[in-house]
């Protein structure tokens, strides 16, 4: 059997993504786009205001298999965690959970993770937990992805 350079886990989540869809009246949400390849990830949250625990989380993706799988696994990991715990999630951890990603596709996991962090920021901002939001423009995305968007190295 020939091997597409995706792990079994990535393929499973690509074919059967978890937490797919949208939340009505989300407490926080973000839509991130990648300047590298033009894909879009949307993430929405329901957060328990007392415990700060993420009670529901859903995503949509206009991206490749790696992007879909990463978004999916992030929702699984984040669900039930506090926003603080979720914010500390490292992308290396996500890649590991996925059983690795081809180097050229690592940036897709960064993108998905960024939308989680942005969705949390959006929640914090709406609830007066942070002072000011910086708009997500291309410059900001490039800054965040700096060093990880070289498609040949994935770094």
């Amino acid at each position, binding site marked *: 059997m020939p091997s597409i350079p995706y792990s079994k886990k990535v393929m499973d989540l690509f074919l059967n993504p978890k937490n797919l869809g949208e939340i009505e009246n989300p407490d926080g949400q973000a839509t991130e786009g990648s300047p590298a390849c033009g894909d879009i990830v949307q993430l929405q949250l329901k957060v328990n205001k007392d415990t700060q625990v993420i009670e529901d989380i859903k995503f*949509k*993706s*206009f991206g490749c298999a790696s*992007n879909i799988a990463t978004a999916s696994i992030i929702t699984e990991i984040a669900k039930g965690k506090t926003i603080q715990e979720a914010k500390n999630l490292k992308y290396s951890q996500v890649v590991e959970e996925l059983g690795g990603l081809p180097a050229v596709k690592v940036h897709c996991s960064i993108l998905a993770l960024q939308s989680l962090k942005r969705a949390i920021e959006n929640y914090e901002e709406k609830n007066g937990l942070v002072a000011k939001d910086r708009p997500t423009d291309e410059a900001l995305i490039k800054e965040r992805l700096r060093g990880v968007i070289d*498609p040949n190295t994935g770094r």
Partner: protein
Amino acid sequence: MNRIYFDNAATTRVDDDVLKAMIPFFTQNYAIASSIFSHDDGIIAQEALEGARGFILNKLSAKDYRCIFTSNPTESNNLALKGASFAKKSGNIVVSKIEDLSIINTVKFLQKKGFEIRYVDVDGKGFVSLDHLKQLIDDNTILVSIQHANQEIGTLQDLSAIGEICKQKNCIYHCDATFSFPFLDIDLSKLNIDMLTIGSDTYYGPKGASALIVKNSLELEPLISGGYQEYNLRAGTQNIPAIIGMKKAIEIFDKETFNYIKSLKDYFLEKINQIPHVRLNSPQNASHPGIVNATFLYIEGESLTLRLNLKGVSVITGSACFSKSLEASHVLLSCGLTHELAHGSIRFSFGKYNTFEEIDKTIEYLKEDVAFLRNLSPLYKED
């Protein structure tokens, strides 16, 4: 599982008759062709080689032309562009924006070597603007390179008009006909083409063969130095089995093959209407008979090709996610498609070994997979 191969624009299965024609040149007439005063083995090889050369020149009605065999169309295109440019030493080169990478990256290389490169615009369906072409050519233009059939969307350029412009402006015209020959007739006695690239492995011939057809009067600097093969323009032992296979593939490519492939395409175009929100990127007329490029709105192409692949269908996409360089197809972008539209584009290319039943199956798979991926997409709102 029998796979459904709809990637015939990339390369095709070798025809059994082609392979049969090649076999003796592996195990019987295997000698090299260069020793004309020497032994019969070499002379047999030489005659086979020259036979193929004459056949191809004749097929193209190329009277005052040489036929230089190379290893693939990329090499032929490199020999044409680098060869003519280095022979001329300086000047500007005009190419269309939708050429194959073997042209695009060759002119980028030539730019680094001091040549100026000018890109002709194309319209929404990939047709070169003849007005823009005329504007771009000036006294310092040494070379124009504009393809025949486009490799991603199938658009056919008007070679006669382009050749006429180049003739009037007195510059060399190179045409990359890799993807059109022998599907479409090319008559060099009637067209103003100075150099023509043809391939082998997209019409049931083998890999390892291609030719650059070059006017006798035209000077080229060789890319590859060494022995005195191929009019001293391409050194190295010729790949005679592949060249014989190429010849055979041209010989057996007939009107019937053309019509069958075209009927597959027509059938597919009829069926694809069953899927909503599909944008056809290929032109309706003046298009290669075997190719359909379509964008499935709101979804990303790599995901779709991957899902189709799991069901046994081989296609490719112009999505950035799919390419090694994470850049969307330069052809689609040059035709004015947004990144988003290029993202969801799929190339279906049909060949003589495909069947109508394969198309039926693929349409069913497409319905399922497109619906699934749209459901996933943040851009898609059900009507």
